[in-house]
């Protein structure tokens, strides 16, 4: 049966709730309402108020409470209604959750789910991609799946992981992406990127919704004789450097593509690692394609200009191929 990206996450959560009585959900409007995007629809009826906890509008307290519950042996899964609001919980995530194991040996097995990304005319406070700040925080794991298969497999791995995991779900993919999922249970390992299309001439390293833009570009340029390899990072922290470097060493050219704004984004970090460890393989400049350094605008022409898209990727790929 074909399953959407959203339904895949829901299934993953549901299966883990069935499997482990210590898994429970905390968040705003996740119970009676089933979540702003309906990812937790039906869970209150199945698992009850004890395990599906509707909270006040208190992102910091929600994450803090999850940390405290994890100390008692539970495995809380938090929903931050929009990832834009995760800034309210920044201290709890960055100073509390991320540092406990290193400071005093206390693991914090929590998952923080956060719908992120633009393309839905959500404006400056319902469209952001805040992952880079958390990738800069040792002690966290950061996941950004692009497919229904990975979303389900990775949410299950995140719940079973003994460290704090941030799980950025791209909301433009929720109902747009679907595929057939295996009947049998599976997980996807954290920390492993995936070559989702093989190619010879250049590599596009990307994640989240931009994986689909990269694949479209690769398909289109295939007709022009340009063979593009697409690497889906899937996990942003810890970075699967090996898969990225292997791809770049093979193609000798790299485009780093993300929807997040360019300065301080993942592209800069990847670029540094490629130049440090694969410089002699490069046959052209490392190219970044990302959103410009502005807030995410609301009006369609502005948002369209803000987001990386097929046209921008195709243009840069042609240029780099010719270089």
């Amino acid at each position, binding site marked *: 049966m074909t399953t959407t990206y959203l339904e895949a996450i829901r299934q993953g959560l549901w299966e883990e709730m069935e499997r482990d009585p210590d898994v429970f959900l905390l968040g705003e409007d996740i119970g009676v309402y089933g979540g702003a995007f309906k990812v937790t629809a039906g869970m209150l009826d199945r698992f009850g108020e004890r395990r599906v906890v509707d909270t006040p509008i208190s992102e910091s307290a929600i994450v803090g*409470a999850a940390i405290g519950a994890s100390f008692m042996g539970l495995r809380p899964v938090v929903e931050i209604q929009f990832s834009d609001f995760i800034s309210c919980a920044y201290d709890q995530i960055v100073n509390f959750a991320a540092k406990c194991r290193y400071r*005093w*040996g*206390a693991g914090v097995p929590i998952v923080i789910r956060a719908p992120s990304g633009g393309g839905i005319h959500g404006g400056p406070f319902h469209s952001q991609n805040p992952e880079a700040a958390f990738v800069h925080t040792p002690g966290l794991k950061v996941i950004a799946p692009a497919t229904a298969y990975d979303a389900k497999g990775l949410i299950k791995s995140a719940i079973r992981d003994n460290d704090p995991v941030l799980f950025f779900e791209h909301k433009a993919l929720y109902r747009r992406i679907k595929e057939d999922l295996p009947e049998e249970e599976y997980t996807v390992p954290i920390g492993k990127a995936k070559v989702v299309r093989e190619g010879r001439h250049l590599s596009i390293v990307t994640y989240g919704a931009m994986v689909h833009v990269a694949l479209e570009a690769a398909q289109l340029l295939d007709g022009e004789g340009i063979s593009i390899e697409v690497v889906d990072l899937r996990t942003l922290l*810890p970075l699967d450097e090996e898969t990225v470097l292997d791809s770049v060493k093979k193609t000798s050219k790299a485009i780093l593509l993300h929807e997040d704004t360019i300065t301080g984004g993942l592209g800069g970090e990847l670029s540094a690692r490629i130049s440090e460890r694969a410089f002699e393989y490069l046959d052209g400049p490392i190219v970044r394609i990302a959103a410009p350094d502005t807030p995410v605008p609301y009006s369609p022409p502005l948002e369209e200009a803000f987001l990386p898209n097929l046209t921008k990727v195709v243009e840069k790929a042609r240029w780099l191929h010719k270089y």
Partner: protein
Amino acid sequence: MGAGLAVAGDPALESAREYSAEQARRFFYYMSMMREVEDRIERKLYRQGKIVGGVYVGRGQEAIPVGAGLAAAPDDMLFPSHRDMALYLIRGVHPRQIFAQYMGRIGGLTRGRDGNMHMGDLRLRIVAIISAMAASVPVAAGAALAMRYKGTRDVAFCFFGDGATSRGDWHEGLNLASVQRVPLVLICNNNQYAYSTPIEKQMACANVADRGPAYGIPAEIVDGNDVFAVHSAALRAVEHARSGLGPYLIECKTFRMTGHSAHDPADYVPKHLWKTWGERDPIDRAKYAILANQWAEPEEIAAIESGIRREVDSAIEWAENSPYPDASELLEDVYER
């Protein structure tokens, strides 16, 4: 309250009435041990350059962690703030581990990863504070939520200062805890200064306790320098929380009898306050109550005090012999191995 409370007429004599000699001596022991350990840290080891980082002590406030800490059952979770050293002693952390912690040695609870009171041990059911004040409040609320989830009758104790109650986390934490009616005991150490900022610049209401009812949380004010009164209040709070009635807030009125940290001479504190509050010293008051009730002879008190000094001497020696961590440990334990 007037000057010279550690004499006849001290209200602590009244609050001590329900207590036994054994309990009173325990209170005295832990308060005195905390004072001795912190005096050595702040006034000796820090000045000798043996403490590599910050020093924040609870001088004059020992009745709060001792009175509240001894009201907790062994399975209750403790969330100390940075002036609550006695909680660690009560849970069995040895003074030598505390000295080693301050000195950045591997014998400390964090093996040199963190300093001062930034330490915890889940086996002892103590959670380490972080420097952002009040961050522990929602975390303690979550631990209490989990206790109910698991069907235990345990309680979480969360400690914080008056300054912490200005943070959003404090308010979010109290609200969430109250909405969920979780078994949480909230202990405020109102020592009237947040670093250099006096309470009247910290909040416009008269008492931290006034804020409790706004969240549907019962609250009471207690003399924070009377260990018997703090203990009795904490027992009321525990009973309330354990019987499923939700959180309970205790505001302990006290005074910080030193600077914010060892480098702070606290010149901003009006001089008469040192005198007034010095006469309300919680240890002197407990000692007076013990002697007045004939729970111990003066010689026995002196023997307890000299025993503590000897224990602390050898603890310091142990800590100084504990090695620094090797730099090869730097990258370990960021994630589960």
